[in-house]
């Protein structure tokens, strides 16, 4: 989704899925060692993901207000 879509929400959902995949990988690894370190790491990953979604959606809404589009190709004009 990150590579193939142009809608900002689709890209954000792609990043979320990607981070959830990493969460699953961490917990699989840690459970094979009977460890709870993945639980802690995943809690921090969830914090980072929540921050990323909030900032991403703020940029999305800002882009929609300023450029009147939801296409990611026009994001560069927000710098002006």
């Amino acid at each position, binding site marked *: *989704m*990150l*590579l*193939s*879509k*142009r*809608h900002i*929400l*689709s890209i*954000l*959902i*792609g990043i*979320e*899925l990607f981070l*959830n*995949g*990493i*969460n*699953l*990988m*961490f*917990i699989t*690894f*840690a*459970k094979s*060692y*009977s*460890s*709870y*370190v*993945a*639980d*802690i790491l*995943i*809690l*921090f990953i*969830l*914090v*980072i*993901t*929540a*921050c990323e*979604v*909030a*900032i991403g*959606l*703020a*940029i*999305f*809404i*800002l882009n*929609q*207000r*300023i450029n009147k*589009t*939801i*296409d990611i190709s026009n994001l560069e004009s927000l710098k002006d």
Partner: protein
Amino acid sequence: MLDWLIIFFCFLAISSAVTTSMSSKIIRSTFFFGVTLFVIAFVFISIGSTLLGVVQILLYTGGTLVLFIFAIILTANWDYKNLGETFNKPIRAIVISFIFLGIMSYIVSTSPLMKELAENFTINYSNTSKDISKTLFEDWFVILEVASFLLLGTIVGCLTLLKYRKEIS
């Protein structure tokens, strides 16, 4: 029985994630994304990380889905059809994602740091949640503080970004 349940949830998570990626409509994609998050939470609960599963459902899934739905509602009058929300160059995307999966699996499974961490924090099944809380507030306290500052920074960042509304109007 539990093993089959975990396999079933994993299969469900993969299929809903694929459906999320392949959906052409954003609202449908968001719905299946929510299903994926719920199923991953059930996977966490099934393999014994109850605290993580509950956090995933109550805070992460709830918060994220509400944010996405609000964003869709706020931009609902936009013509999504012009965007052509189909997969561009799907083979390239699939190949890159599998390469990334392989690299990440290799790094996580062979990293000495991860092995050391895993051996230092072994599970005591009677009070895992207590162990996690204790570890968070003792060994990982600095990182916890950094995470809290990150959340604070996010709030300030979002307010700063959306401040432009007044200037535009």
